[in-house]
């Protein structure tokens, strides 16, 4: 089973976010970067598919600045076979469509059964790139997969909806996006970490894939401003010496002040 797993290298969820001097991008000083957590489920499932089949290859790909190579190394240590880094050059912000075009260009060159994504990257949180790649490659896709069964030439995927699961059967190759619950990702072993150093990372330039670098005149989405949320008002603490009285006071405030009951 051959898989391409696309990863997003994003600020650690514990990182404090600061706005850069331009007022519209992230101040990257002191930011710790991680492989987006959902991508770990995607990678794990791709490795399991290969192991179950007893043959195949798992390639990881990321699009962005050079730091993404650190993320690729982590994936190689966990069990991916090789990696592709698409250098986004000077583009500080690459929108979902441009990212999807780069990944689709990499996928087109390979013979694949699966193209995997996390159901969202925890940076821009858009959940766009996976289905866009499917459209660009004219492949079926199933999003937000929590369970996968592989049979010859097809898969049955359980996908999470609001209060329900959809059970979807798809032909191969297929684009899948991984949701939490799909599996428990493995950690990299010491042997894996040592071995990862010898595995190849192929470098590609955005322009060579035929994708124009993000151009302010281009017809794509842009960030105009990045803002931190206004601090919420100070919490109104209700004394709890008498639980019944505290509960009554809370309900009164919710009714009369907040007007939500």
């Amino acid at each position, binding site marked *: 089973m051959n898989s391409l797993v696309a990863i997003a290298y994003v600020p650690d969820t514990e990182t404090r976010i600061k706005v850069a001097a331009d007022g519209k991008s992230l101040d990257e000083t002191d930011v710790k970067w991680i492989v987006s957590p959902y991508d770990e489920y995607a990678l794990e499932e791709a490795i399991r598919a290969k192991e179950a089949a007893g043959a195949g290859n798992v390639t990881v790909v990321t699009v962005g600045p050079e730091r993404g190579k650190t993320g690729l190394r982590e994936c190689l240590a966990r069990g991916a076979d090789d990696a592709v880094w698409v250098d986004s050059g000077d583009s500080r912000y690459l929108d979902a469509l441009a990212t999807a075009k780069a990944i689709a260009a990499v996928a087109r060159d390979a013979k694949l059964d699966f193209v995997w994504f996390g159901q969202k990257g925890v940076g821009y*949180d858009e959940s766009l790139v996976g289905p866009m790649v499917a459209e*660009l490659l004219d492949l079926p896709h199933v999003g937000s997969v929590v369970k996968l069964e592989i049979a010859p030439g097809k898969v049955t995927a359980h996908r999470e909806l609001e209060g329900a699961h959809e059970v979807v059967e798809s032909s191969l190759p297929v684009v899948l996006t991984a949701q939490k619950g799909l599996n428990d990702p493995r950690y990299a072993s010491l042997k894996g970490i040592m071995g990862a150093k010898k595995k190849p990372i192929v470098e590609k330039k955005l322009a060579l894939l035929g994708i124009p670098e993000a151009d302010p005149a281009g*017809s794509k989405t842009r960030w*105009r401003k990045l803002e931190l949320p206004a601090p919420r008002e100070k919490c109104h603490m209700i004394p709890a010496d008498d639980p019944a009285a505290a509960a009554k006071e809370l309900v009164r405030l919710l009714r009369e002040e907040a007007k939500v009951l």
Partner: protein
Amino acid sequence: MKFLVFIEQRDGKIRKASLEALALARRLAGGPVAAVLPGKGVAPLAAALGKSGAGVVYVADRDDLGLYSNKGYVGALSAAAERESPDAVLIAATAMGKDVAPRFAARRDVSVLADVMDLKLEDGRLVGSRPVYSGKARAEVDCGAATLQIATTRPNVFPAERDESAADARVEALNLPDVTPRARVLRVEASESKELDVSEADVIVSGGRGIKGAENWPLIRDLQQALGAALGASRAVVDAGWIDHQYQVGQTGKVVSPTLYVACGISGAIQHLAGMGTSKVIVAINKDPEAPIFKVANYGIVGDIFQIVPEVAKAVRAAKAE
């Protein structure tokens, strides 16, 4: 400015999130807009969308759209867009909307203002505001020079006003080719509980590690039922196996924006705050006065949830009985 709004229905009922998107489009357009309604047996639902802002509804009522497929549903949206030539397309950011929007956008060689919590017009261009970096910042975004602008709207954020005096929408049938999707829904399995999902709820009561064990959910359920709310949970209790992942609110669970969020025994780890920080009113009940949840809460009670929560349930029932 011409808008087209994608309308989603489930089990013969129009989704509230779609009505929110439709009402938003009407507000922005300053008058009735176009809508597209795919599904099986959906034609009778179309005319009444006039009350929510539709002037015309393109209906794709077909047997092969009875179960969702992105091929079929994106096909219906594309056909309606062909007929209407909209400047902007709005889609509710539900599970289905998140499936439809990016495929449709890629087909039209544009991107999407995804999951916006605010949307306005500036010189005929959409400007959206959306949470980024786990909800820790907000980005103001636009579509550059794209001739087709697409946005998905976060459910439960925009009001779904109705105008009871508005005329019925004009209904136009779409002619579509037969669809044989390569990814085919075999069946939809409702959660055993059949209960309201957190992502659709106006009021949510959530439990965290403070409940001490899976056997104590009745404590939280009692308040949940008193409020007519949905049940939520923190990552800690999901990871501990005390409840299924479908209840999880937070970064690796569901992102919610209810009117009222009641956090019981939840400390408020950043990954939880990322999922519920945009709630309109937040109540926190926790024994630790230093818990970060109190930094985002509007109302807080420091105390033992086993004493406080039943009293709150009692007070809610008393207030509702008045």
